[in-house]
């Protein structure tokens, strides 16, 4: 029972990472109907920035918040400089741009930092925490906590602030948004900034577990895709739940059924399965196209 609970909890901890990256994907998808394949590499690169700051002697939390800000600015700049010129280009061109970004960030990280893995610190204690008779890793509890705080802040931002409302409006109905005076282009750029910032948090939370290397996010991006699809690719709440669900399932299947080596295959099976059986996901809207 103890082992089982620990597996579930470990699943929630990684699930929070998937949920964050899935949410970043869904935010951009909702606004542009495009999947940003470079989302994971952007998160990885941001984590290297954090590593550099910490390595230079900056206290952990200062480096953490500075990295979030840098990642936000980086996201905004990428949208303004690289994505915006291809805004009206065919989908395939945009996909090529995204894949180009993916490769560039991966190579850039490898070139600057080398491909050897680095240890990334956790801000949480090394000793396990016991709750009742159970022992949990402090980093896992901390990572879930940080994820929940980020998700809560985002929810409050979109739900209760005028800017959050304007961003939702711009994603849904750009023409009507312009007619009420919303600068739709900037809302898209802000969306990229937020998505990039969320990814940076996810990267910093997962790096102490998987270690830091330029390919750190590849598998995670696949799980995040699966999570976004399970939840419904146009539902932010669904993507978050999907993330936690995929994290727990992955961990339980890995521990008890298929073993760790086949876990990544599970993500693929899930992606294909959802696409075939229920393309709109658990919480997504079913789109009926009139012919």
């Amino acid at each position, binding site marked *: 029972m103890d082992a089982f609970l620990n597996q579930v909890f470990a699943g929630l901890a990684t699930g929070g990472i998937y949920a964050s990256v899935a949410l970043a994907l869904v935010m951009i998808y909702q606004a542009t109907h495009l999947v940003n394949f470079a989302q994971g590499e952007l998160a990885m690169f941001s984590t290297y920035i954090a590593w550099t700051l910490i390595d230079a002697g900056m206290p952990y939390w200062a480096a953490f918040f500075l990295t979030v800000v840098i990642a936000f600015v980086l996201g905004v700049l990428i949208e303004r400089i690289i994505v915006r010129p291809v805004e009206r280009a065919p989908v395939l061109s945009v996909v090529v741009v995204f894949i180009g970004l993916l490769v560039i960030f991966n190579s850039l990280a490898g070139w600057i930092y080398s491909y050897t893995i680095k240890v990334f610190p956790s801000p949480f204690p090394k000793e396990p925490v016991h709750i009742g008779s159970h022992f949990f890793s402090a980093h896992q509890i901390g990572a879930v906590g940080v994820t929940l705080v980020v998700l809560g802040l985002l929810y409050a931002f979109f739900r209760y602030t*005028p800017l959050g409302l304007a961003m939702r409006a711009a994603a849904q109905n750009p*023409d009507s948004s*312009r007619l*009420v*005076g919303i600068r739709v282009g900037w809302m898209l750029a802000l969306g990229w900034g937020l998505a990039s910032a969320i990814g940076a948090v996810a990267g910093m939370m997962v790096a102490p577990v998987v270690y830091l290397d330029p390919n750190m996010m590849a598998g995670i991006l696949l799980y995040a895709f699966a999570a976004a699809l399970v939840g419904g690719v146009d539902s932010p709440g669904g993507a978050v739940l999907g993330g936690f669900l995929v994290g727990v399932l992955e961990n339980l299947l890995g521990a008890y059924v298929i073993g760790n080596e086949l876990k990544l295959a599970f993500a693929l099976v899930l992606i294909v399965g959802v696409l075939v059986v229920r393309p709109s996901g658990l919480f997504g809207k079913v789109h009926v196209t009139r012919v």
Partner: protein
Amino acid sequence: MAALLEVSNLHAAYGPTRVLHGIDFSLEEGSITALLGANGAGKTTTLRALCAMVQTSGEISFGGARIEAKATEDIVRLGIAHVPDGRGTFVNLSTEENLRLGAYVRKDKRAVEQDFERIYAYFPRLKERRHQQAGTLSGGEQQMLAVSRALMLRPRLLLLDEPSFGLAPLIVREIFDIMRAINQSEKVSILLVEQNAAMALDLADHAYLIETGRVVLSGSADEIKQNDAVRRSYLGY
């Protein structure tokens, strides 16, 4: 007195398709001016041209200043509110959020909060439905919402694109009565686009008739009503 809106030699095109071929019209401050014409004449395109939503050439002045080179988002900030063709509802947002977006560019936040009550006094139905997702409102309610969203700007000029379209006559009457009240009590000038010429001419002071991208007739609403060609083709008597 100079006109509030002055349009001259306005051309507009969708890519290679040229739709407006040099339109001239003007609108006096405080008036209700109607643009009439059959389906496909170019009425919607004219309104979209005023808000820089299509490629245009020609001159547009508003309140004495040229605006044809401005972006849609900046034209709104001058006090031009547009109720677009198809109503432009934010279907996934609540009624209240739709209204809040209408006031997006306003800085006087306290007055915006009071304006919700002003709007709900005109359209009590919207108050009942204020937490409901706007896409689930009826056609008439969505038209009321579209007009209200525009009024939340506290505009100087209201552009209305076929507010009667697809609605029951009783609802149309209700909306038109409120338009008249708003024009009279709040001094909002209105440019009204309609296929329903009879209703529009009852409401308007002045009217222009558009056929295939050109103004073919203009005058006071009474003169237009008396015109034989208009009576035959647009009023049906």
